[in-house]
């Protein structure tokens, strides 16, 4: 039986694992041992050696991110902060929800250890407002921790102290961008900040701050208690550990599964997601949420590893796949996504604020049967410009253009058919269009 550290506590009925059961399953034992036996520097080294990469979408090496936090006197006066990014809003992504709702202590233990490794004084869980069940359960779990002495002053006699607060967000996708999230926590509009300075040096209220995804933080306890070698051995290919993979769309068994990094896409879509619904054929899929490039059935035998998916022209993203079938229009799907990104632009910079709505208008022309060859050329030109790295303040617009540009690459005949056929042939197929 392969190790499934992230989901080992989950129950078939989805009921939450409270403190007593979490401890009975071995929870918080690692915390006690690490706080007494390990230095923060040693913890950072183990996470680096484990080669954990961020599970929120970007895949940045977690140990390296932490290493930029000034330690000891170099940090200057005032608190340091750790923030769990629980603002799960990437379209098609529903993986952190299961941890937040069903195993909140796994997140909290990982946060305490991550906070210890960077010597943070205060931690926040930044939770999207619509996750109401998660909000109740995380708040209750935090309360249990204060009562049990896992949070607050001098945690379990270790001399280390940490305060943990839950912040419920008031919405907006852009809050998932870490500097926008920090602005939201400071009570401001969630416009991303210029970098540098990076949050590790100057983040929340100008103090050193680490923002990590929920799933990333959940890995920390397992890595620190079972070691870097064990964690590396979990992956099938170049990347370490396991990952919460998922699939949605017209597959027989949509869901989330913890599988080794490097699991072939075919295994995820055919074995776990059960293949396509009867009467539907696989057309393509976004491998890691709404801001990743389409891949096609030709890519089914690729491994879900950061670099493998990157070389194929897409991104691992959040690892939750959105599946396009042959009865839904690729242009309609891309238009839905572009509308989302146009709406969620923070409005700070022009290519994103004005450019993405322009893309939506062009896609509308295809849907309405008004598009010409000139529109197709304009769509491609503008999408390349808006998606160009460095043309915008943050990564929202480049992410927004990934489905558009990859649709132009793989589903070009659909665009041509919309021009020559003066409209969308899928609209006659019934469901959606």
């Amino acid at each position, binding site marked *: 039986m392969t190790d499934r550290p992230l989901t080992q506590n989950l129950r078939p009925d989805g009921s939450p694992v409270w403190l007593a059961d979490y401890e009975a399953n071995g929870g918080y034992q690692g915390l006690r041992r690490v706080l007494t036996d390990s230095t923060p520097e040693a913890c950072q080294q183990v996470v680096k050696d484990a080669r954990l990469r961020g599970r929120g979408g970007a895949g940045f090496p977690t140990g390296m991110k932490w290493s930029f936090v000034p330690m000891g006197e170099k940090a200057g006066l005032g608190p340091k902060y750790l923030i769990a990014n629980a603002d*799960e*809003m*990437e*379209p*098609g*992504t*529903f993986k*952190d*929800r299961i941890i937040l709702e069903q195993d909140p202590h796994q997140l909290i233990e990982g946060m305490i250890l991550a906070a210890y490794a960077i010597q943070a004084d205060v931690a926040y869980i930044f939770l*999207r*407002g*619509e*996750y*109401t*069940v998660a909000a109740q359960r995380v708040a209750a779990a935090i309360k249990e921790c204060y009562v049990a002495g896992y949070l607050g002053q001098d945690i379990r006699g270790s001399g280390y102290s940490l305060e943990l*607060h839950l*912040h*419920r*967000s*008031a*919405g*907006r*996708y852009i809050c998932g961008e870490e500097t926008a999230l920090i602005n*939201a*926590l*400071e*009570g*401001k*509009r*969630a416009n991303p900040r210029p970098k540098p300075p990076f949050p590790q040096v100057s983040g929340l*209220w100008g103090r050193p701050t680490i923002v990590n995804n929920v799933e990333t933080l959940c890995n920390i306890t397992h890595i620190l208690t079972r070691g870097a070698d064990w964690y590396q051995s979990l992956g099938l290919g170049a990347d370490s550990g396991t990952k919460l993979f*998922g*699939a*949605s*769309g*017209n597959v027989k068994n*949509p*869901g*989330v599964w913890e599988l080794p990094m490097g699991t072939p896409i075919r295994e995820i879509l055919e074995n776990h997601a059960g293949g396509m619904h009867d009467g539907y054929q696989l057309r393509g899929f976004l491998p890691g949420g*709404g801001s990743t490039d389409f891949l096609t059935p030709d890519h089914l035998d690729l491994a879900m590893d950061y670099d493998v998916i990157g070389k194929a022209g897409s991104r691992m993203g959040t690892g*939750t796949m*959105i*599946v*396009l*079938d042959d009865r*839904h229009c690729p242009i*309609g*799907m891309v238009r*839905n*996504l572009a*509308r*989302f990104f146009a*709406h*969620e632009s*923070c409005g700070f910079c022009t290519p994103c604020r004005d450019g993405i709505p322009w893309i939506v208008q062009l896609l509308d022309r295809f849907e309405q049967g008004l598009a010409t060859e000139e529109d197709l050329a304009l769509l491609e030109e503008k999408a390349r410009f808006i998606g160009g790295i460095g043309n915008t303040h943050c990564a929202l617009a480049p992410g927004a253009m990934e489905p558009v540009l990859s649709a132009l690459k793989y589903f070009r005949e659909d665009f041509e058919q919309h021009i020559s056929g003066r409209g969308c042939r899928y609209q006659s197929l019934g*469901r*959606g*269009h």
Partner: protein
Amino acid sequence: MTDLDVIPTLSPEEIAEIEHEVALIPRRDSAAIDALMIVQRHRGWVSDSSLKAIAALLEMSPEELDGIATFYNLIYRQPVGEQVILFCDSVSCWLRNGDGVKEKLSELLGIDYGQTTADGRYTLIPVPCLGACDRAPVMMVGDDLHTHLDDCDLASLLTCEANHD
């Protein structure tokens, strides 16, 4: 009337809850979003007079606070119905007939996005991906998530919600 005179527009409970948040953070104005959400929990939405009172309490300008309030989609600057329906209009729900369900819901309630039913019971608002794509299409009614809407009887779902209050 000075700025501070408007603070009593807020109830003692609202002020106490806001001050509890303020005590946890280094700057008063950093409690802006929490304060708006607290007042909204008590009143359903944030009126101009509430906004001015919160701004005075947090020692910031009403204009700056309104810039924040109008940025966030879960802060309502207009009156809403007793229950807000957040209907997911993102991609996984679209692939699972979300548009068709939304049409049925609009027909049933007699309202489109941004509108409130004549009886003041429901306001319908689109919302980005609710993170329940394996159970699409989905929506929230108040604090409750409803899933697999394609296979469900919306009328009885809303009746159940009404009874469940």
